[in-house]
């Protein structure tokens, strides 16, 4: 197996982009990544695209063909992959496997979601299809409702508080203020979060990530060739993916994600690192409780202490293990299929020292954690500075 590196990344602005189309977004993100990598489009061998549901969001399937066509990359192979909100992470992993195997040399890993071309309630309904339609959605479950069931149990078992969950939102909104691509440049207070409208108790509106349009791309090459293109290649040192039951009620625990635990175990092993070696991480904070569970499942603290270390500032910029320096799904926005790639973009920029005001000084090792649905799929990647 060959070692694989990222040589360029690109991101659109995240937000409610009413004046920008699906095809325009992917071209923008792709062009930025190609420019960042200093390659010519003609050199690209293949592309993997993460997308949850263009069929529901823009009534368009077969987007792989549409994307390579509008990107001017015909006739290279393009493959769409889907695992709900983990589609982007999956695309990165498939691109990694394609390069590592030797089948392709220069591969684009992309992610995109156009979520605001339909009404907000239709978007919510489309997102809910990531849950079990027959035994969760049928009885009146919503996506926030499913995470609320985890939050309530986490509070019950570990004493996690609504204030601690609110602190995740406060931190991620703060970080997003330093990210030009983020959907929100708006600080929120613990009060704001606690006073926002109840969605599914104990989760309130400001515990939830928003509806977002956005696209992201990363360009992968064999590590041995990476220096031809850049002085700061970012090595993908480990990748892990795992599955769990689609329905929350069929899982062994409600207070963490087994798929995360299994995926990160595989990724740490492949990279030859442990949780304590990681300098920063982008984790899947689709809801504030999800970040608290993620930092526990990834090994950054003991099970049950995620709320406590958040409260103590350990996950803030300048803390022991900065989490979601980009603003996370909460502050940067969550265009579901793009999220897994956007996380890798943030880590690549951080490890290259290009993260501006949110830079984690001296960062050498970063991690991304992308979850599909309520935890039926998890994908973890570990990145190292190439020097």
């Amino acid at each position: 197996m060959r070692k694989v590196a990222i040589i360029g990344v690109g991101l659109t602005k995240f937000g409610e982009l009413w004046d920008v189309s699906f095809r325009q977004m992917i071209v923008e993100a792709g062009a930025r990544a190609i420019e960042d990598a200093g390659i010519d489009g003609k050199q690209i061998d293949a592309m993997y695209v993460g997308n949850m549901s263009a069929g529901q969001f823009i009534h368009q399937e077969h987007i792989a063909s549409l994307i390579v066509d509008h990107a001017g990359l015909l006739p290279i192979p393009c493959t769409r992959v889907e695992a709900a909100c983990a589609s982007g992470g999956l695309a990165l992993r498939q691109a990694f496997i394609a390069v590592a195997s030797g089948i392709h040399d220069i591969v684009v890993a992309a992610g995109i979601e156009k979520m605001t071309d339909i009404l907000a309630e239709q978007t919510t309904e489309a997102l809910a299809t990531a849950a079990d339609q027959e035994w969760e959605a049928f009885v009146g479950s919503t996506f926030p409702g499913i995470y609320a069931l985890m939050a309530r149990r986490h509070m019950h078992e570990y004493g996690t508080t609504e204030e601690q969950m609110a602190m995740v939102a406060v931190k991620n909104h703060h970080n997003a203020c330093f990210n030009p691509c983020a959907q929100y440049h708006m600080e929120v207070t613990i009060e704001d979060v606690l006073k926002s409208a109840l969605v599914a108790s104990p989760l309130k509106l400001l515990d939830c990530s928003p509806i977002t349009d956005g696209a992201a791309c990363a360009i992968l090459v064999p590590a041995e060739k990476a220096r031809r293109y850049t002085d700061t290649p970012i090595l993908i040192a480990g990748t892990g993916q795992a599955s769990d039951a689609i329905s929350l009620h069929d899982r062994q625990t409600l207070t963490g994600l087994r798929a995360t635990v299994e995926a990160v175990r595989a990724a740490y092993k492949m990279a030859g690192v442990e949780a304590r070696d990681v300098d920063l991480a982008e984790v899947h904070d689709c809801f504030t409780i999800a970040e608290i569970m993620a930092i526990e499942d990834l090994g950054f603290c003991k099970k049950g202490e995620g709320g406590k270390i958040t409260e103590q500032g350990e996950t803030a910029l300048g803390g022991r293990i900065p989490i979601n320096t980009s603003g996370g799904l909460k502050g940067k926005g969550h265009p579901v299929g793009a999220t897994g790639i956007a996380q890798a973009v943030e880590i690549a920029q951080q490890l290259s020292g290009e993260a501006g005001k949110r830079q984690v000084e001296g960062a050498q090792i970063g991690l991304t954690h992308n979850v599909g649905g309520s935890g039926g799929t998890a994908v973890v990647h570990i990145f190292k500075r190439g020097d």
Partner: protein
Amino acid sequence: MGVPRFWREIPNRYNLIGVKCKNCNRVLFPPRFICPGCRRVGKLEPHKLKDRGKIVSFTVVHVPPNGFEGQAPYALAIVELEEGPRLTAQITDCDPNQVKIGDDVEMVFRRVGQEGEDGVIYYGYKARLV
């Protein structure tokens, strides 16, 4: 949800019929088509579940999905049935804010949801505090 897709599961939804593996005695609900523990050597048979259980976790849904507008706010819970399986169900016939983890419940037959003004009405199980 289309009519055939609902109709197929009527025995399971109306009468709480799951499956039991004759090889390992595990009771499964919602029904499955292979025992996840025994796989090919498992032997699944229909099994009517006892209707008692306990609340493992709950939420009160304030923003409901389509088809549930008239019911919000409602309590939604993960219930662990006496025979082991867990399911997601609404907690009915109570003030949703009085539901607690550990509460005992019994499963009851209720109207669950509706597809639009003129659409199909779905029936199935909800849970009631005992």
